[in-house]
């Protein structure tokens, strides 16, 4: 088998607990986004558009939801091939003595070292499964190779007062990194890591083995691996990315990032055919906009039936919005049904949920609003007729977990 230049490892194991009940039954990267996508579509489509044709998807939390969505990768031209290429889902393995979750991002890679060894790549690209962005990794690879770098970190500028939430890098004129600090209280620079790395595999492999043996390590790329390599005098470079990039790890950022798509000129263009975002979607009929419907400033996917009023909202596949209902500033996940006379404002409605007639959700505004005033309705449930739910609350159902 010819040696591969680069493979990608996509970290899709995060539990996404800051997304609350949105990730109760589903892994974060499998959460719906933007009317038609799943969050993981962006990372996978970036691989496809960059010509990275071998991708290991590391799952652990609710792996079945991700596994059945990504399949063997055909939707992203990553169909699994005989020689180990294409897409492989890598779940934590349950041995005879049981299994356990990864101890950190570096440990997740360590546990899958044999997979990478079999493929024998020169470079390993590490990306996250919960970022919304379009990026040509091939340009980053060229930069990495031109610098003969051991590690290249994709970075962007943020307002200096935001930098403390990220890994902060300090670089010289050639963009070589001389300092890396994970979430420093007093950042020295506004250049922060996007969590996208290219490593020489030989360098990464050595670092993973040593880090695994280090009992004090938290097995984390930002906290352990990168500082360690810098200390050892390895060549770390920063690759400047100027495009749109969002981490959708919280309810607020998930909501805001969706809403950004509604701008007249949205910062990320989903209609640009030269760099498409691909997804594994079902063939659904066109959307029906009824006689008395009103639809403005909204994004709507196939299979929907809209008979009510829709404004500033994102509506995923197969949603039914009855006559006389009003949906504003909301994100509706697939297969939701909203009954006659229901009014909802700034609500995220989980998939397969039924909101019965005359519910009022998010209308009542408490003095102190939680989660940015966004109301969250959990998936696969029924909100009974006439229920009133205050803005900023989370409406969950305890009890029986669905099959994940």
């Amino acid at each position, binding site marked *: 088998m010819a040696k591969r230049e680069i493979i990608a490892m996509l970290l899709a194991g995060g539990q996404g607990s800051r997304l609350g009940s949105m990730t109760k039954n589903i892994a974060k990267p499998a959460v719906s986004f933007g009317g038609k996508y799943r969050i993981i579509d962006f990372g996978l489509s970036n691989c496809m558009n960059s010509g990275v044709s071998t991708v290991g998807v590391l799952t652990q939390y609710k792996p079945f939801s991700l596994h059945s969505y990504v399949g063997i990768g055909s939707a992203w031209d990553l169909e699994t091939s005989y020689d180990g290429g294409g897409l492989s889902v890598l779940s934590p393995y349950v041995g005879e003595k049981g299994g356990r979750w990864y101890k950190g991002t570096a440990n997740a890679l360590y546990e899958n070292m044999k997979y990478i060894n079999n493929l024998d790549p020169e470079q390993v690209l590490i990306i996250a499964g919960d970022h919304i962005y379009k990026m040509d990794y091939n340009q980053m690879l060229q930069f990495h190779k031109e610098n003969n770098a051991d590690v290249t970190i994709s970075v962007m500028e943020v307002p200096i007062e935001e930098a403390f939430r990220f890994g902060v890098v300090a670089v010289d004129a050639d963009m070589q990194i001389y300092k890396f600090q994970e979430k420093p209280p007093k950042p020295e620079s506004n250049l922060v890591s996007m969590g996208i790395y290219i490593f020489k595999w030989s360098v990464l492999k050595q670092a993973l083995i040593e880090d695994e043996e280090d009992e004090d390590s938290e097995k984390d790329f930002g906290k352990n691996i990168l500082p360690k390599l810098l200390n050892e005098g390895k060549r770390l470079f920063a690759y400047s990315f100027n495009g749109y990039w969002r981490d959708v790890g919280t309810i607020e950022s998930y909501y805001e990032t969706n809403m950004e798509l509604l701008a007249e000129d949205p910062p990320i263009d*989903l*209609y640009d055919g030269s760099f498409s975002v691909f997804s594994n979607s079902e063939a*659904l*009929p*066109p959307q029906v906009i009824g006689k008395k419907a009103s639809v403005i400033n909204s*994004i709507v996917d196939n299979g929907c039936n809209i008979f009510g009023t829709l404004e500033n909202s994102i509506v995923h596949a197969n949603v039914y919005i009855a006559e006389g209902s009003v949906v504003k500033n909301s994100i509706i996940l697939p297969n939701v049904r909203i009954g006659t006379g229901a009014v909802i404002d700034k609500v995220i409605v989980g998939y397969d949920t039924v909101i019965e007639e005359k519910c009022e959700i998010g209308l009542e505004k408490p003095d102190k609003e939680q989660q940015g005033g966004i109301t969250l309705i959990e998936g696969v449930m029924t909100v009974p007729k006439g229920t009133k739910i205050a803005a900023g609350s989370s409406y969950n159902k305890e009890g029986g977990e669905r099959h994940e």
Partner: protein
Amino acid sequence: MSKVLGIISCNYQFNKIHELNQNRPIAALPFGGRYAIVDFPLSNMVNAGITSVGIVMPSDYRPILDHIRSGKSWSLNRKSGGLFILPGMTVSLDGNNKFPIKDFRKNIDFLKREKAEYIVISGSNSVINIDLAEVIEEHQLNQADVTLIYKEQSKVNCDELACIVKLDDKGQVTDMVKSGTVDFDSCRIFTDQLIIGRELLLRLLTESYSGDELSLIDLVKNRTKELKVCSYEFNGYYASIFSKETYFKANMSLMEPAVVQQLFHGNNKIVTRTKDNPPTKYSQEANIKDSLVSSGCLINGQLEKSLLFRGVKVEKGARIKNSIIMHDCQIGQDVVLENVILDKSVVISPGIEIIGHKDSPTFIPKFKSL
């Protein structure tokens, strides 16, 4: 279920619809915002558990092949059975002579090789979502030789091209005649779908020495005395497309939510090839009523009783009414369209006004810029 083989005749064309499909067989005609007409017979067969389907191809096979590809969308990219490309001639039809027997004779090896008990044969110009498994079951229960599927329609909806099925009081077929030649209040229109035993079909094909110009329908109707030719009444939505007007009408009937419900939201899905379009975006200026819109559209204008295929852009101030806009069309600012059909990738410059006749819409061919 016994093994059943499907055959879809995709190689016919109607003179009356020439304008719409001069560069594609009627089977490949875009319909309903994202479908091709062949999606209906193909999905019906697959939904009935049929896993071997032969497609009789016209000489210009590319449009159909481009759409169906490996059959993966219908799970027909199989090792056992699957999709079979059968060569046929493009035949121009105007009535009863559908399913020319020379097509079957040309592909007799296929009919001999595929060991099915029954064959479902379908045309490719009908919009219908039918549970063929139920029809097959009834065919078996009746121990029928042939079962013809018909739809009863009032005479006013009965075009002169339709083939009318005459039944006796036990529901058995006694004759099949052209619509124009009879005078009933209501008509039982043959839906171009029938079930026949494979052995019987092979026998009919070898027995009938009479020339190749006959059709399978002729063979059956000449034998209604010797054979048990049963009928099955279909009660759901059915539209036969054979002219620009019937094409327009069938598409427009989708403005009726009940029709969309019946065709697309029932137990049996109509499957088509998926494309990676983004969802559709409606701007602040959008004003949509009573319309069907496919994904990938960007809508800034006004839409009423219209059907938009994938990837259509409608600029501010444009008003579209009672029209069909096929995929990737661009409608400029302040354009007014009424009673028109735009074929794919048509570009209408700002300010242009096209108003067609209500009963005979204006048709603009593909890739045209106005």
